[in-house]
C-alpha cells in the first residue's frame, strides 16, 4: 500500500463543470430541433428523388447514352412514379403536435440527466482524476506525504548530521519504504551519536538482518547480544537470537530461548502471541525437517571483502596519491560498520590532500553522506 495516498479533490471542480456542460449539450441536442419549425412536407424528398431521375434521363439522352425512344419510355415511367409519390403527400401534422413537443422537451430535461446520474453514479469516480504516468513520476516526491516528510528530514540531516534523534526517526520510515541500506545507516548513526541502548542495538541489528535478506548475520547477532546485555529480556533481541539459533540448525535451542522469553514476559505483552506461534511452528512435526538457512550467511563472504579492504588500506598506506581509493576505503569501512577506521581514513586523506579544496569538499560531503561525523 505504499502508493496509496489520499487524492486531493483539486480536480473535482473541473470534472463537475465538465459533467454539467456535457449534460447541457446533450439536452440541447434534443431541444434544438423541437424549437425549430420544420416546413418540409413528408414526401417532398421522395418527389425530389424522382425529379433528379428525370433530369438525369435528360442528360443521358443528350449525351447519346440512351436512345430517344428509351429516354421517352423512361420519362413516362418515372413520371408515373412521381405522380404516385405526389399523391402520397398528405398533411398529417396538426393536433397534438404542441403537446408532443412539450412532452419530449420535458422528457429530455428530466430523463437524460436521470439516466446519466443513474448509470454513472453507480460506477463512476468523479473525484478521482486521471493519473498520467509522467505526471505522477514528476509530482510524486514533492507531493506525497511520506515522500515529502522524508525529503524534509533528509535535508535537515544533511545540514545537521549530528542530530541523532533525526536519524532515529527516519530509520523505521526507511524500513517501511524498503530502503533497507538507508535504514541500516540511519540506525547506525543514531546508535553512534546517541550512545548505545538496548533498543538502538536491537533496531540496528534488525535492519542488518533485513538487509541480509532475513538471515541473522554474525554482525547482527553480536548486536542483539549487546542489546540483551543492556536490557535483559529485550523481546526483539530475544526473538532474533532465537531465530539465529534456528537458522544455525538448532531449533531446540531456538524454542528454548523463545519459551524463556514468553515465560518472563510481562502479562499482556503484544508479542507473546507471535512468539507462541513461532514455538508452535518449531514444536510441530516440522521440527524433524527444520529448514536449513535458505541463503548462505554473508559471514561466509565477509573474509573476502575484509581481505579486499585490508589490501586497499595497505596500498594507500604505502602510496596515498589515489584520492578515489581513499573514498572507496572510507565507504568500505562505513559499510562494514567500522566507523572508527572510517574516521581515521578520512583524517589521513585530509592530511594527504590538505591543499586541494575540491577534494576536501568531497571528503566533507562523504562524511556527511555516510554519517561518520566528528573528524
Amino acid at each position, binding site marked *: 500500500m505504499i502508493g496509496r495516498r489520499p487524492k486531493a479533490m483539486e480536480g473535482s471542480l473541473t470534472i463537475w463543470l465538465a459533467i454539467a456542460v456535457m449534460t447541457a449539450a*446533450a439536452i440541447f441536442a434534443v431541444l434544438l430541433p423541437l424549437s425549430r419549425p420544420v416546413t418540409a412536407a413528408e414526401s417532398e424528398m421522395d418527389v425530389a428523388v424522382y425529379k433528379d431521375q428525370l433530369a438525369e*434521363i435528360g442528360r443521358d439522352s443528350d449525351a447519346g447514352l440512351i436512345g430517344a425512344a428509351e429516354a421517352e419510355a423512361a420519362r413516362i415511367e418515372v413520371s408515373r412514379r412521381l405522380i404516385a409519390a405526389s399523391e402520397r403527400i398528405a398533411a398529417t401534422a396538426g393536433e397534438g403536435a404542441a403537446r*408532443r413537443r412539450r412532452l419530449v422537451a420535458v422528457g429530455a430535461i428530466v430523463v437524460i440527466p436521470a439516466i446519466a446520474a443513474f448509470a454513472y453514479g453507480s460506477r463512476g469516480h468523479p473525484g478521482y482524476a486521471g493519473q498520467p504516468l509522467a505526471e*505522477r513520476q514528476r509530482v510524486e516526491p514533492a507531493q506525497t506525504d511520506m515522500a515529502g516528510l522524508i525529503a524534509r528530514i533528509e535535508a535537515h540531516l544533511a545540514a545537521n548530521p549530528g542530530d541523532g534523534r533525526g536519524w532515529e526517526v527516519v530509520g523505521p520510515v526507511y524500513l517501511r519504504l524498503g530502503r533497507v541500506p538507508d535504514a541500516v545507516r540511519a540506525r547506525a548513526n543514531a546508535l553512534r551519536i546517541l550512545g548505545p541502548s538496548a533498543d538502538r542495538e536491537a533496531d540496528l541489528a534488525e535492519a542488518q538482518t533485513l538487509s541480509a535478506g532475513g538471515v541473522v548475520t554474525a554482525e547482527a547477532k553480536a548486536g542483539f547480544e549487546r542489546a540483551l546485555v543492556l536490557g535483559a529480556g529485550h523481546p526483539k533481541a530475544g526473538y532474533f537470537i532465537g531465530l539465529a539459533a534456528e537458522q544455525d540448525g538448532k531449533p531446540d535451542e531456538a524454542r528454548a530461548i523463545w519459551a524463556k522469553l514468553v515465560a518472563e514476559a510481562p502479562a499482556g505483552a503484544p508479542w507473546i502471541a507471535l512468539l507462541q506461534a513461532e514455538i508452535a511452528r518449531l514444536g510441530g512435526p516440522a521440527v524433524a525437517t527444520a529448514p536449513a538457512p535458505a541463503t548462505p550467511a554473508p559471514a561466509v563472504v565477509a573474509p573476502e571483502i575484509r581481505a579486499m579492504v585490508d589490501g586497499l588500506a595497505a596500498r594507500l598506506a604505502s602510496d596515498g596519491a589515489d584520492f578515489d581509493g581513499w573514498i572507496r576505503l572510507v565507504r568500505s569501512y562505513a559499510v562494514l560498520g567500522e566507523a572508527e577506521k572510517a574516521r581515521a581514513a578520512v583524517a589521513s586523506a585530509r592530511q594527504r590532500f590538505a591543499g586541494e579544496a575540491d577534494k576536501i569538499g568531497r571528503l566533507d560531503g562523504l562524511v556527511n553522506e555516510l554519517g561518520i561525523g566528528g573528524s
Partner: protein
Amino acid sequence: MMSPEVGHFALVLALALALVQSVVPIWGSRRGDTALMATASPVALGQFAFVTLSFVVLTYAYLVSDFSVENVFQNSHSTKPLIYKISGVWGNHEGSMVLWVVILTLFSALVAVFGRNLPLTLKANVLAVQGWITVAFLLFILKTSNPFARIIPAPMEGRDLNPLLQDVGLAIHPPLLYIGYVGFSMSFAFAVAALIDGKLDAAWARWVRPWTLVAWIFLTAGISMGSYWAYYELGWGGWWFWDPVENASLMPWLAGTALLHSAIVMEKREALKVWTVLLAILTFSLSLLGTFLVRSGVLTSVHAFAVDPERGVFILAILVVFIGGSLALYAWRAPTLKQGGLFAPVSREGALVLNNLFLTASCAAVFVGTLYPLALETLTGAKISVGPPFFNWTFGPLMVPLMLAMVFGPFLAWKRGDLAAVAQRLTLAFAAAILATLVTYAVTTGGPVLAPLFVGLAFYVIVGAILDVAERIQLFRAPAATSLARARGLPRAAWGAAVAHAGVGVMLLGIVGETAYKQETIVQMRPGESIAVAGYDITLQGLVPVEGPNYRDLVARLTVREGGVDAGMLEPAKRVYTARAMPTTEAALKTRGVSQLYVSPGDPGTDGSIALRFFYKPMVLLIWIGTLVMMFGGLLSLSDRRLRVGAPKPSARRVAATVQPAE
C-alpha cells in the same frame, strides 16, 4: 479535461441520447410529426460527438499510460512503442467494443449529415433503428465491459508486453473489419425502417447500395489483410485456414456480396424487394454474430464463454433480440411490400438470382461448418473440429458454377436474355480457358489432375470480364475514337463490375497456383550446405545471433543463386523476446514476379545445423492482388453516383438482340 471520468460520462450521455433517438423519431414518424422526426439528426450527431470524445479520452489514457484505468493497466505498458499504445486501445475486448460503437455512430452521423434528400420519415426510422443498435451496444459496454473502470490506487506499471500483438497488420486489421461489419448495419437499418413503414421506394435502393458497397470494400480489405498477416507472421505458410475467426468474417462477406447484387436488381427493376430486405437483415445478423463469435471467447471453448456468464448472456440477448426481432418483423410486414416486375429465368435478373442462390448456399455451408462444432459441444460435450476438407467439399463445388455464371451475367439483357447469343460472344473466353488448361497440362508435372481445369476457369473469368467491357465499348468493331468515347461514357458502375469480376479470376489463379503447385521441402542444413528449390540454389552461410531492441535473433543466413547468378540473401530467424522469453519464428520471403520462395526456420540442432522449411508458392501473391482488384472495382462502382432509373424499354425483343448500355 482529459480525465478518464469525462470519457466514462460521455459514454453514459451517449446512451441517454441513443435512448432518445430510438424512441422519439419513430414516434414522430408514426404520428407524422415533423418536429419529433427532426430530432433524429442532431441527436445522432450528439451521440457521435460523445462516443468519439470517450474514445479520444481512452486513447489519451493509453498514450500517457494512465494506469488508474484498469483497461490501460491490463493492456498496455509504459515502454510500448507509440503506435502499439494506440493500437492497444482496440486490441482488447472493451476498447474494441468502443471502436465498434464509434463507427456505428459515425454511420448514423453520416446519414444525419448527408441524408438531406432522404424522405424525412425514412430518415427518422433509419436513425431510430441505428439508435436501437447503439443502445444495445452501449448498454453492453457499460454493464459488462466498461473500459473506464478505475483502480485505486493506480499501479505503477501496466501488464502487457505481448510481442506477437505488436504488429502493424494486427493494428489496422480490426478497424477495417469493423467498418465492414458496422457498415452493414446501414442496410439493416434501411431494411427494418422500410418494413416498419411498409414501403420501399426509389430512395431506398438508391441509399442502400453505396452503404453496402462501402461496407463490402472495407470488409474485403479486412479479410484480405488478415489473411496476409497469417501468411507472413504465423510462419505456417498458409493463407487461409477455415478457422472460425476467419469464417466469422467470411460469412457476412458472402451475404454482403449477395446483397450487393440483389440491390442492383431492386434499384434497376424494383424486383427482388422482399429478398433484398431479407438479405440485408441476414448480412447484418452475420456481422453481429461475427463480432461476438470472436469477442466472446465462445470459439476457444464453450466453457470459457460460460466462465463469464454476464457477458455471454448479454451477447445472446442482443443476438436474439436483433436477429429474432428483425426476422419476426420481416415475417409480419414483408407480405405488405409491393412486389416488383417479373422476368424470365434467362435474363440479367435471373443471373443475379443465381448468384444470390450460390452465395447464400456457400454462406450456409460455412455457417454450418463453423457453428456445428459449437452446437455439438454445447449439447453433448463432444469436441470436434470441422477441418478444411469439409469446406473444400462444400464451399468449393458451389463456387465453380458461380464463376461460370458470373461471366454470363453481365452479357445478359435485363428482363429477357438470349443464352446462345451470349455464349457466342464469349467464344474468346472459352478459347482462352481451353488454351490455358492445355498449356498448364503441358508445362506442369505433378499436381492434382483437376488443377489445370481451374487455371482454365480463372482465365475464362478474367477474359470474360475483359470481353464484357470490350463488347460495351465495341472495341475493334467501331472506330477507335468511338470506342474511346463509349469507354468514357460507360458508367463507372459497369467498369467496377467488370474490374471486380476480373479480380475474382485473378484471385482464383493465385489460389490454384498456391494449392496445387506449391513445393515444400524440409531439410536439416549445416553451414556450407546447399539445396535446390524451384530453380534456386540456396546455401546456408551460417547461423548468426543478432540482438534486437527487445529480442534476440538466431538468424540463418542463406545466399540464393538463381541459374548461377547471385539473387540476394534470405535471413529467416528464430526470435526470442527477452522480456517474456517468448519464442517466435520470423519467416523470410523472396518474391519472383507474383511467386514467392518462403523459408521458415525450425529448431537449431546441437551440431550447428538447423531445420529449414522451404516453400515455393507459385502465383501466391495473386490471391491478395485479386482482392485488391476486387476492392478497386468496388471503389469504381462507388464513385458512380448516377441514379439508376430502370424504366421499361419500348421493345423487349429489340433489347434482347442488341447490347444495351445497361446500368
